[in-house]
Structures are given as structure tokens and as C-alpha cells.
């Protein structure tokens, strides 16, 4: 029986070195490229009709577009429009990465902490830059909660600072842990099906069927949560509370 963690193994497909660094094209890279291709096909093929009354695919593409657009409108406001392409990229990349990872024998690149952390730190640095560019030094009032007695400020500022700095960590671990835990659980239960035979094998199989449905929800939900938190961080940077 293969280890439940075997599915997270990265195997190089095309060895590649740039400046002495190993940047081989791996199964993870393949799924990232496939995710980009899937997003491109989803939107470009879906919208190719440019129909006034959309068909099925165009409806889904438009709904996705509107879903992300609505998230920004509600959480960031009108000023959030210029960050829309980035947020849509983030949402669709994570969503398609999660969904493609559910295919048998494929690989879930969002189950690797280094990938989710890179995405989270990109959001964190980007949001901080947006805040400093928009508000200058005034941006740092974000760490001073309003309406607090002056005596409390020395205690509260470090707390606010820590909570701010822990954002990329919580953001990346949430996505990584959810994806990894779900996939590991499915593999663990799948491993019991054959050994338990005809009499007992149906129980873990039933659990796996339920988990598969559950994983689809998680795949969507985690992409949504990641994007929503990005919108909330953008709100803080744009409006300072």
C-alpha cells in the first residue's frame, strides 16, 4: 500500500537548470500550466459566442466574473476596480488548481505550503505597497485602533502589528492544510477498501464517495476564502479601517 502522502511527491518530468538552480518541469508545473490553460479555455471559449443571451458556458464564465467583481465591489468598493484582474487571476488560478487536483492521478499544487505561501506573501506585499502608495506614512495608523485610551496604545500596537504580519501565514496555511488534509483523508480511506474485501470494503468506499463531494466544496470554498481575505486586506489598505 502506497503512503497516503505519496500523492504529494514532486517528480521532475523535464530536467531543467537555470544558473545552477534546479527549475525542472515537474508534475506540479504541469498542473499549473494546465490550470492556466483551463482558465484560458474556460473564459475565452466560454465567451467566444459573445452572445447577448448567454448559453451554458458563457453563463458560467460570466457568473464567475461577476462573482469576483461582486466580492471586490462589496468589500473594497469602487476603488477596488483596478485590482480586479489580479483578484480574478488569484481566484481562478487557485480554484482550477484545486479542482484539477481532484482528478485521479493528478497533482494538487495548492497542497504545497511553498506555493500557497508564495501566493499569500505576494498578496501581503502587494496590499502593503498599495496602502503605503495611497496613504504614505498615514498608512501606519492602521496599527493604532481608533477610540482606544492612550495608555493602551503601547500594548495594542504590537498586537495589531503581529496580527498584520501573521496574515500571510494564516492565509497560506489555511489553503495548504485544507487541501492536504482532504486529499490525505481520501487516500487513507481508499487504502482500506481493498484490504477489507467484499464484506467491509463498502464502508470506506462510501466514506470516500462522500469525501469526494466534500472535497469539491472545499476546493471552491478555499479559493473563495483566499480571495475574500485578499479583498478584506485590500479594503484595509485602501480605506484604513
Amino acid at each position: 500500500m502506497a503512503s497516503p502522502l505519496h500523492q504529494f511527491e514532486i517528480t521532475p518530468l523535464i530536467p531543467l537548470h537555470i544558473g545552477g538552480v534546479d527549475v525542472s518541469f515537474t508534475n506540479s508545473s504541469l498542473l499549473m500550466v494546465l490550470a492556466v490553460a483551463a482558465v484560458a479555455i474556460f473564459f475565452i471559449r466560454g465567451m467566444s459566442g459573445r452572445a447577448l443571451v448567454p448559453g451554458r458556458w458563457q453563463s458560467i464564465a460570466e457568473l464567475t466574473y461577476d462573482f469576483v467583481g461582486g466580492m471586490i465591489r462589496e468589500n473594497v468598493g469602487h476603488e477596488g476596480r483596478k485590482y480586479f484582474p489580479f483578484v480574478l487571476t488569484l481566484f481562478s488560478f487557485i480554484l482550477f488548481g484545486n479542482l484539477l487536483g481532484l482528478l485521479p492521478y493528478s497533482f494538487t499544487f495548492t497542497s504545497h505550503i511553498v506555493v500557497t505561501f508564495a501566493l499569500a506573501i505576494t498578496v501581503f506585499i502587494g496590499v502593503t505597497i498599495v496602502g503605503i502608495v495611497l496613504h504614505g506614512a498615514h498608512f501606519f495608523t492602521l496599527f493604532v485602533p481608533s477610540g482606544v485610551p492612550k495608555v493602551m496604545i503601547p500594548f495594542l500596537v504590537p498586537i495589531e502589528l503581529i496580527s498584520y504580519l501573521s496574515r500571510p501565514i494564516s492565509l497560506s496555511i489555511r489553503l495548504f492544510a485544507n487541501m492536504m488534509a482532504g486529499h490525505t483523508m481520501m487516500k487513507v480511506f481508499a487504502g482500506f477498501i481493498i484490504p477489507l474485501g467484499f464484506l467491509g470494503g463498502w464502508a470506506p468506499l462510501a466514506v470516500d464517495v462522500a469525501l469526494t463531494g466534500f472535497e469539491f466544496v472545499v476546493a471552491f470554498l478555499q479559493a473563495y476564502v483566499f480571495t475574500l481575505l485578499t479583498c478584506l486586506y485590500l479594503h484595509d489598505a485602501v480605506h484604513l479601517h
Partner: protein
Amino acid sequence: MPQLNVAMFPTQLFWLAVCFVALYLLVTYVIVPRVGTVLDERQQRIDDNLERAAALKADAEAAIATYEKALTDARVKAQAHLREKTAELQAEAEARSRALSERLAGEIKAGEARVMEARKAAVEGVRQLAADVAGDIAARLTGGAVESHLARSAVDSVMGSR
């Protein structure tokens, strides 16, 4: 745990950067304009249609107002015409009945005159007869002729001016 294999970090970060930037460019320059145009066009079309519907509704309301005004005008005109004609006919009828009653009054008067004349003639006839009869009777009694004018004056004196 394969996730902690640091040797595989650079390749993941490299391909993540490549793919994410590629997707970002694709979204910014292809997907957002494409979907945005379609959604904008639809919104434009809906707005246009709503505007046109509102214009048509205003037109219809104006037409209804014109129609109702024309209807009221026609009704008012018809009533005025009716009143005018009624007055005219009434005047004509009155004039005609006046003329008729005048003519009838004239005829009644003429008739009365004729009756008076006939009566007068009848009375005269009776006098003459009475004078003749009286003359005859007197002649029989006296055995001589009696002057007719004497008999007449005698009858007149008896009858008086009746």
C-alpha cells in the same frame, strides 16, 4: 512529508511565478476586456431598450391624450350644434304656430261677420214677411188696399229695433 523537501522549492516557485504572471497577463489583456465588453454591451442594450420603451410609452400617452381631447372637443361641438339646432327649430315652430293661430283668428272673425250678416238678412226677411202678412190681414179686414210702406212702419213700431 514531500511539502518540506526544500530541494523542490525553487522549481515550484519558478513555475508558479511563470504561470501566475502568464495568467495575470491573460486575464488583464484578454479575459477582462472580452467579458467586460460583452457585459457592457448587454447593459447598454438593456438600457437602450428601456429608454426606447419609455419613449414609446410617452408617445402612446400623448396619443391617448390627443384622442381624448379630440373626443371631448367633438362632444362639446356636437352639444353646441344640437343646442343651436333645437333653438332654431323651436323658433321656427313658434313662428309657424303664431301664423296659424293668426290665420285661424282671422277666419273666426270672418265667420262671425258672416253669421251676423245672415242673421241680419233673416231678421229683415221676417220683418218683410210680417209687414206683408199684416198688410194682407188689414186689407181683408178693411176691404181696401193698404199701402205697403204703412204696414211696414207699423210692423217696425211693434218689433222695435229687435
